[in-house]
Each structure stands twice: as structure tokens, then as C-alpha cells.
């Protein structure tokens, strides 16, 4: 990494409300948003209630957009406001880029449109729906809403999309392709996805859903949206913004079938540490005080997150405090890495890590797995994610002044 990339704005929508403060308060209290899914009671589901996009953002066509796209647009717009770029201070559209983390947020529209083609016939379908069913549509609609003209890219990588998108956004900023880049994503669970994952044996009921627990047996999905604004650190300081954090490095590695997920994730962590230039290898690993992991209740993945930390950090892993926001929010897929980043920044700033909700029998001994909020030593945060197709991603971030 040749020049530092600052995070100057964040926004998050979860079942606990809008904003990082509402999320931090709920996680700190150990709350869990997962409940039985109304359409499929065998699986757990965390859903945002009372969401009206026009309460947050007014853009042309908002009512037509699918819910996940509405959530992404709202998150992206609020993050820009948080970064100080709204209204009269809005950034020149030519200088604003967008990276969207989205694998599934178009899919419900696609299913509905195709069903209409077959059931009512082509001539009676709404022609505006089809383009909204493309995998790139949520990003296209968000780019249009923000008037982001520098670039608009969408990455599809399931639960690893968010961290990879942050890495790609940071790369674009360092390359000078935009003055600022919004990295955004949203996920709205829907019936076909819940049913398919249940049949694949991936799901857990609301009652039995837990994360990083020896009794964990599967995933519950959660609705969420999040966005972060990236810009060069020097430029942020130059316009008088105090950065919320600095994105130090990001790396993605793949675990071919037969290879261990923990090994691939460990390699991603090592690659990120190596490019973060936090000093010598021991100094770099010792600088990490928090690991905000993407563990989601899948026993294999939960184990892989912990094993990767142990293998990549060695003895330095011992004092690292683990945070696992999906224990409270469920598996949010595309925006999950972004939500992890928001949670980690809040924890670093407050010097306090949230507990892992519902943790009864930890996979590793406490204090690494707090069941109550714990003090954090000053340092950096390491974020990890694993996608359903075995892509493993790691990201390092720290507060602006460190």
C-alpha cells in the first residue's frame, strides 16, 4: 500500500435501527435480531422492520426499485452525508466512484420477473423490471442515485464481497481513479434462498442459531445494508475531516476443494499483514487488538476463522479479542464485511468490544470470546470473511490517528 486510504463516512441499516450508534448499543447489550422466518419457520431470520426509503433519501424511481436496492441507495447516500459530501458540499460527480458488494440483491426481482414471463406472458410483463433483475442492477441504480460518474463496479463473492469491495475501492483511490469512493452493499433474504439453504442443510432455526459456539449447527440469514466512504488520507485531512479510520490492507485468497479454509484464510491474513506495513512481522501481528470475524454459525467456517487467526498470528493471537456481529444479526452475505468494518471502527474508537451474543460453550477459552463487553487495548482491527464458494478475505483497519 503506497498511500493511506481513509474512511471518512459510514452508514448502516440493521434490524437494530439506522446508524452505527444504534448497532453498537444493541451489540453491546448482547441482543439478537434473529427470529423464526415468517415464510419458513424452521429457519432463523433477522429482518429490518419499518423501513421506508423515502424517509432517508428522495431519488427518482425509488419506489420502483427492489427493497435491497433501496437499502443500498439509502446506506450509500447517508454515508456520503456522514463524510460531509451532501447538499451544497456534494462532490463533483466525475470524482465519485462506487463499488457495490452484491451477489444476491438482484435475485428476487429476477425470480419475480421470470415468473411473470411464464405465468402472464411477455407482453404483460413490466419492461422496467427486467433490467432491475440483472446482477449489476443494484450498483447501477445506486450509481445513478449518487450520480457517481468516476466508475461503478459490482463484485459478487457472497459473504466475502464486502471486504473484497473495500479492497477494490481502496485500490481505485490509490490509483487516482476517483477522489472518493463509496463502497456499499445490501442483502434482503427471500423465500427461495431460505428454502434452498434449508434443503442444503445450511440453516439453523432461530432458537438454535449461535456463532463460534461448540453447539453451532447452521446459519440464519439477516437483512442489512452498509456503506463506507473512502478517500486519500491526506485529502481528508486537507479538507478538515477527521478520519473515522484508515484502511491498511486487504487480501483475498482461495481455498481449492480439498484444501483447508483455515489455511486459505490464514494466507489472506498473512498477505494483508505483509502489505499493511505495520512494521516487522511480529510488530504487525502484535498491533492487532480486535478480530471482527465473519463467523456465521456454520461449524466448518466458524472453526476456520479461529484456526486462521491462530496460524497467521501465532502467539500474538492470544490477547486478540474476537467480535462476531453475525451472532446478533445473522449472515448478511454481501454487506456483512461492511457491517463488520462499521462494528470494528466503533469498537476501536470506544476501546470496547461487544460480546458474542448467545455464546454458551466457546470454541476457544475466554477472554478471546467475550460474553460481556470487554476493554480493548489500542491497536488495529483484523476483519475476516469466507464466501460460500471458498474465497477467503482479510482486511486490516485502524483508527485515523494511529
Amino acid at each position, binding site marked *: 500500500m503506497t498511500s493511506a486510504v481513509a474512511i471518512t463516512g459510514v452508514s448502516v441499516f440493521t434490524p437494530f435501527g439506522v446508524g452505527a450508534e444504534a448497532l453498537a448499543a444493541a451489540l453491546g447489550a448482547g441482543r439478537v435480531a434473529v427470529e423464526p422466518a415468517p415464510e419458513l419457520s424452521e429457519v432463523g431470520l433477522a429482518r429490518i422492520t419499518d423501513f421506508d426509503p423515502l424517509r432517508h433519501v428522495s431519488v427518482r424511481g425509488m419506489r420502483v426499485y427492489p427493497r435491497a436496492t433501496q437499502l443500498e441507495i439509502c446506506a450509500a447516500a447517508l454515508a456520503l452525508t456522514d463524510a460531509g459530501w451532501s447538499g451544497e458540499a456534494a462532490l463533483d460527480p466525475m470524482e465519485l466512484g462506487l463499488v457495490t458488494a452484491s451477489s444476491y440483491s438482484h435475485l428476487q426481482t429476477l425470480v419475480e420477473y421470470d415468473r411473470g414471463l411464464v405465468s402472464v406472458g411477455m407482453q404483460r410483463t413490466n419492461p422496467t423490471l427486467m433490467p432491475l433483475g440483472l446482477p449489476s442492477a443494484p450498483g447501477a441504480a445506486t*450509481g445513478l442515485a449518487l450520480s457517481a460518474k468516476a466508475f461503478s463496479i459490482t463484485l459478487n463473492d457472497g459473504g466475502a464481497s464486502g471486504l473484497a469491495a473495500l479492497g477494490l475501492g481502496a485500490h481505485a483511490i490509490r490509483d487516482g481513479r476517483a477522489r472518493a469512493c463509496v463502497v456499499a452493499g445490501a442483502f434482503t433474504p427471500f423465500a427461495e434462498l431460505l428454502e434452498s439453504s434449508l434443503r442444503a442443510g445450511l440453516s439453523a432455526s432461530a432458537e438454535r442459531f449461535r456463532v463460534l459456539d461448540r453447539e453451532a449447527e447452521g446459519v440464519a440469514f439477516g437483512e442489512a445494508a452498509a456503506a463506507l466512504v473512502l478517500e486519500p488520507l491526506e485529502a481528508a485531512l486537507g479538507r478538515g475531516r477527521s478520519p473515522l479510520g484508515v484502511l491498511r490492507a486487504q487480501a483475498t485468497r482461495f481455498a481449492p476443494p480439498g484444501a483447508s479454509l483455515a489455511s486459505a484464510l490464514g494466507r489472506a491474513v498473512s498477505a494483508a499483514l505483509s502489505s499493511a506495513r505495520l512494521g516487522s512481522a511480529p510488530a504487525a501481528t502484535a498491533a492487532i487488538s480486535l478480530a471482527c470475524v465473519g463467523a456465521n454459525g456454520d461449524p466448518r467456517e466458524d472453526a476456520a476463522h479461529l484456526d486462521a487467526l491462530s496460524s497467521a498470528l501465532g502467539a500474538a493471537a492470544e490477547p486478540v479479542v474476537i467480535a462476531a456481529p453475525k451472532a446478533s444479526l445473522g449472515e448478511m452475505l454481501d454487506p456483512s464485511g461492511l457491517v463488520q468494518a462499521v462494528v470494528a471502527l466503533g469498537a476501536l474508537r470506544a476501546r470496547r468490544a461487544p460480546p458474542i451474543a448467545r455464546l454458551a460453550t466457546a470454541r476457544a477459552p475466554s477472554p478471546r470470546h467475550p460474553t460481556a463487553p470487554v476493554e480493548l487495548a489500542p491497536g488495529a482491527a483484523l476483519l475476516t470473511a469466507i464466501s*460460500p464458494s471458498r474465497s477467503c478475505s482479510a482486511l486490516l483497519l485502524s483508527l485515523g490517528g494511529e
Partner: protein
Amino acid sequence: MQRRVVITGCGVVTAAGNELESFWSTLMQGAACIRPLAAFAHAEMGQLSGAEVTLPPEDRLPPAIDADPLRARCLELGLAASRRAWAAAGLTSAAADAEKTGVCFGTTMGEERQVGDLSERRKAQPDAGVDASFFARANNHRLAAQVAASFGCGGPVLMTTTACSSGNAAVAHAFDAIRSGDADVMLAGGADVLTRLIYCGFQRMGVLSASICRPFDKSRDGVSFGEGAGAVVLESLEHARARDARVLAELAGYGMSNDAHHITAPGPHGEGFVRAVHQALAQAGLSLDQVSYVSAHGTGTPFNDKGESEAMLTLFGARAKQVPVSSIKSIIGHTNGAASAIETVACVLAIQHRAVPPTAGWRDPDPEFELDYVPGQGRPHPVDVCLNLAAGFGGHNVCLVLRRFS
């Protein structure tokens, strides 16, 4: 000092051929491969036409990867093109450093056929459910992951979608991975299939050609679809030299822009193309005067071709008529997310063969734009620097700059 990135292998599966020789030969002849469609029909649209790929048996998807190849056609095509590119580069799994070898692919629709299949089953049986594999197939990243798994790659594996510029976007991100040192070798490409939804959706939007598309022609009336995949092996120059690989071309830079104008219509006057080209050439350290060929997006729709032609006039000014601009979409159809990946391969071949492929079907000039669209058949031309332009629904423009390696 950023690393130089070179192309050492190419592969395609298209209606114009599944091997580079037959593909290039068909392109140069300007022989349209758009024919009555065999894969499926649609009662409301009558006989459909498109450019379908015929794969040899050895390219069929093994049940171990997917037990239902019909619903995994995109993966089947992507793997077939990747295998060809990998072999052409002379790479073996053992030769590549897994940690430093990655994949980046792009698609517009992915495995949309499984959604169509679900709709059909629900029509027959309203409470028909989805199966366990729906979730996995719905994740487009599975394509990049399976390609990576096939060659033992352990480096960065990414999947991108910017609609019909996805192939170029994938090559661009792979370029970044090598240039930054995150990888030494990246297999990059795009794949897409013909689906009922694509035909019906575009018909309802009024952008499907009534016959065969005629990019840049005065009477152009829309797109003709095709399916296929294209893939290239990118390497750092040091890595290619260390293994004595044959360098086919250099990927010198890329540019991206977003129209942010309309969810489907391109921005006015090709302004987004212009910005992407300027950015790409700046990264490549090249000037417009050095550009000798433009592989156009050239879909055959009135708006795209107008904007792209306006962009050429803005960019090249008095020299515009001297720079050949052609689109191969009237030969192999518009292959959506695969299109610009396949066109990247065509650009490499243009450099290699010192020739430019034609815009098949172009007959009558649009009086507003008198450019050299390479009518009829391909012709010899010294291609040293070429631009590969692509645009996607939503306004995603990506331009690659390829140059003869020296």
C-alpha cells in the same frame, strides 16, 4: 515502479469457433453465425435467432461439478474457454505458484437458466420448491471459483459484473492484481448464455433486432444475441520471462467510467467512452495518435452506436476516419458479459495477425458518422495499439489498451 502485465494465453468458445484459428478465420471472413435458435423457443416471439456454441464432448460439465449442465451452462462455457487459455499459455497446475495465481471472471446473467427452470416448474406445479443447489448456483462467484479450482489457483479469485462490460472489467481487475504484486498470474475472462429472459426482456424494451444486427449501419435496429466465453492469461512480465513464455501482447492500461444517466440508456454523446479512453491511455502512457485500431462495443442499437461514433469523433478529430473501428457482434452475436472478454482475444489476434476484423453486415453509412467501420471482410492493418471498448446497462464503461509487445 508498477509491474508490466502481458498476455500469454487466449481461449474462446463462440459460435464462430472454439479454437483461435477457426474463430479468427470466421471473423475475418465476416461470416455471421447468427442462426435460428435450437436451445429454446418462445411462443410469443416466434422463431428466435442467435449465435449458439457447440461444445465438443470433452468440454461437457462433469457431474462432479454440476449434475445438471443445463442449469450450469455459463460455468460450462467459462471453464471451456479457460481451459483453452490455460493450455495456450503453456501453464500446468504444478508450474504455477498457487498463492500467486488467481482468477477474475465477469458475467451479465450467470446461471439465469436455473431461474427460468424454476418458473417453468412452478407453472406446472404452483408449489414447486427450489432445490438445494439453487443457492450455490445463484452465486455468480461459483464460476470464478470453479475455474480456480480446475487449475489449483490459491490466489485472489474475484467475480465482477458491470453488465455487458463485465469481461473487460474482469480483465481490468486482474491487471490490477498483477500490477500491484498481489498475483503473478491471473486468468481473466467472461461468460454468458442465451436465456429466454434475455430475449423477452430485450424484446419488451424494444432493443432486439428484427433480423441480424448491423452495428453502425444506418438501418441498425437492435441487438442479436449470442453465447460464449473468452479468457486470457495475464502475467507479470518478469514471471512470463522467467518461464520463457511467449508473449502475445501487453495489457498496458484500462479506464473506467460511469454514465449515471439512465438504468438502461447510455449517456449522451458517448461522453463516458471518452473519459474511459483518456484514463486508459494515460495509465498506458500512450497518446491517441498511437491508437491504430478500436474494437467497438457496437451492439447495433441506435443509441449505443451513435454515442460510440460520437466518442470516436471527439477523441480522434480529423484522424477519426483513419482509425479502423469494428464490431464483431454481427458475427458472434452480443454475448453480454462474455462479449468484451472475447473481444479482448480478438484484439490480441489482431495484433498478432496485423489485421483487423470487419463489421459484418454494415452496408449503408449513417450520414452523421463517416468512420472506417471495416465493411465486408477483415483486412491487413498494422495494429500496434488497440482500444477495446465495452459498455453495460446502467452506464458502466470500460476501455482496455492492448499493445504489441516489445
